[in-house]
């Protein structure tokens, strides 16, 4: 029945697939940290319990254990203990369902390090910074990179001679290396831009002009370290795609028909963009990772920094919360790109039970 409406069929089949993937992701997100030999709580206790006396340490441990959902609880909320008074670990399945229940309620757990702050609270504080940095950077980088690539392919000559090697170089440099380079050169040697942070140390976040301009100033280096590499990669890919399109039969035919140049450029760009979009979907996961690392280098107060401090402090609930969020956003981004391609390329819908 659905096959009669190819668009709807396409969207729903993609939605189903992404949902299944999401379930898998949640499962993986849950399982992986618990696969290690060490109990996450033991690890953090080993680190932080040093200065506390036994009773305080035990209380802390209990709250961690409860918060992380590791142990069986009695009706009254106290921890079930076995013969030697050690807490009894819940079976993994039970832990998992607990975890899913909590997630659905929007509770991603309580941070170990920032106890008793909730993970969601910490994330909420960091997310605006990350979004503000990544979304414009990725969009602008993608657009400009593709335009440069198309330019290099269509005009050839000088354009190609300059754009191609530059893009090649930009693309080959790893994200973090580039970040460090920019910090070193522009921040430390020439003192043009700040090296660390999202805004001047002495300011508090507010909507004041002072704050926003300060934030913008701190924005520049992180922006460029992601943007340049991304644009470089896109330019290379788009250039290849455009060269391919320019050699196709239909472009030759369009020229033979005497079509105007801007039409031909439009055809080339539109059709070359499609594999680029697919490529975008594939690389969103990688880009997000790279951007997070960039944030870490610049101590930019986004999710990257939160993750770094969480990793260094063995703050498992926070690590887990951030990874889940990152995975979820990558899935959503991929889904959106899939839908977009479905609308732009009739061949995709025709391939799925449409005809």
């Amino acid at each position, binding site marked *: 029945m659905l096959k009669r409406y190819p668009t709807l069929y396409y969207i729903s089949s993609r939605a189903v697939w992404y949902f299944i993937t999401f379930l898998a992701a949640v499962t993986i997100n849950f399982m992986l940290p618990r696969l290690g030999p060490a109990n996450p709580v033991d690890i953090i206790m080993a680190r932080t319990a040093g200065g506390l006396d036994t009773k305080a340490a035990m209380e802390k441990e209990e709250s961690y254990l409860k918060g992380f959902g590791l142990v069986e609880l009695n009706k009254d909320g106290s921890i079930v203990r076995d013969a030697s008074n050690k807490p009894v670990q819940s079976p993994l399945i039970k832990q998992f369902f607990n975890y899913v229940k909590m997630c659905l309620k929007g509770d991603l757990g309580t941070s170990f390090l920032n106890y008793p702050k909730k993970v969601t609270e910490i994330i909420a504080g960091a997310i605006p910074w990350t979004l503000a940095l990544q979304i414009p950077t990725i969009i602008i980088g993608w657009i400009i990179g593709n335009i440069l690539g198309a330019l290099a392919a269509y005009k050839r000559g000088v354009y190609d001679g300059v754009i191609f090697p530059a893009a090649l170089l930009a693309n080959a440099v790893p994200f973090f290396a580039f970040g460090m380079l920019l910090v070193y050169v522009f921040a430390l040697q020439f003192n043009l831009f700040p090296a660390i942070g999202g805004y001047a140390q002495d300011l508090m976040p507010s909507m004041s002009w002072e704050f926003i301009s300060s934030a913008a100033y701190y924005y520049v280096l992180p922006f460029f370290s992601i943007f340049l590499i991304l644009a470089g990669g896109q330019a290379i890919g788009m250039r290849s795609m455009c060269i391919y399109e320019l050699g*196709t*039969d*239909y472009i*030759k*035919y*369009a*020229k*033979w*028909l*005497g*079509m*105007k140049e801007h*039409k031909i450029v439009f*055809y080339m760009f*539109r*059709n070359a963009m*499609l594999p680029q979009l697919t490529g975008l979907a594939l690389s969103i996961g990688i880009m997000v990772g790279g951007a997070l690392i960039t944030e870490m280098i610049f101590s930019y107060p986004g999710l990257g920094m939160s993750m770094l401090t969480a990793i260094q402090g063995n703050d498992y609930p926070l690590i887990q919360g951030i990874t889940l969020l990152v995975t979820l956003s990558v899935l959503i981004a991929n889904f959106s790109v899939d839908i977009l391609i479905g609308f*732009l*390329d*009739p*061949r995709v819908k*025709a391939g799925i039970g449409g*005809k």
Partner: protein
Amino acid sequence: MTVEVQSSVAQTGTAPADKSKVIFEVQDLHLHYLTRFGSKIPAVSGVSFSMNKGEILGIAGESGCGKSTLVNGCMGLFIPPLYPTSGDVRVAGESIMNRTPADVRKNVLGRKVAMIPQGAFNSLNPTRKIKDFAADMISSHEKGSNKAEIYERLRQRFKIIGMTEDILNSYPIQITAGMRQRSVIAISTLLNPQMVIADEPTSALDVTTQKAVIKMIFDLLDKDIFSSMIFITHELPLLRHVADRIAVMYAGEFVEVGTTEQLIFDPRHPYTKALMGSMLSAEPGQKQKKPTAIEGAPPNLAKPIQGCRFAERCPVARKECRVNKQEIRIVAERQVRCDYAN
């Protein structure tokens, strides 16, 4: 399917007596390729012919004989490294050489001379509906028509040639190869060009579709949607059914030009004879011969060739052939480029 050859249209191999019916003329056309090192490779050397209204000229020859280059020349489309050396091409009396690329694009391509490319069914933009692709064609040549008018024109035209509106509203992937081929033919002829060049329009199609395509071509010719056609193919049996005259091309030159009957049943040039001999199907009226392949390969035009270009592979070549350049002579009422053809 046979074609009734009208006596007013049939030509001997020589230039037509009645100049007023001439719609397309190629006069001693020379085209060359410029290599990276600056040397010129003569791809087309001294081709001359003319065509009347309503005539179909078939051009036959092996791959690499210069057919495609000639086609580009006939359209005035010179994209480097292809350049015109000398000669003229006239459509309805007007020369299309020595024009700026912008002029060629706007006024010649699609308007005076149109092309139906090889592999036409891959020539449609896969992400554009047929009607939009066709509309792009029209709007590239005519200013100021709005979309609605253009679509209406397309509907009318498609109706005239017997294609449904559904096809117009489809994407290429949604219609069959045959329909795409016919759409391409329709699009090429939208602006009623005087001359249409069809490059292997029926290759890689099944026999039924081939017949439909040829029927469409005759239909368009009848309805005066275009005036004359150059039909390029390496399938000689096809030419028998379609062409009024045939020109056989080898290594950038015409080696024999004459009526279909003349060339198919009574070829005079050694190469034409060899081509006919390599046909597999027996035509009525031809003696049953064993098909023979033509040994060797076309000459490398980068090196200057003395004498006849076919001499290397000619079964009846003489000593003089490799020395004396062969010019076109009139033998048995058609043009032959061989001093020794009888």
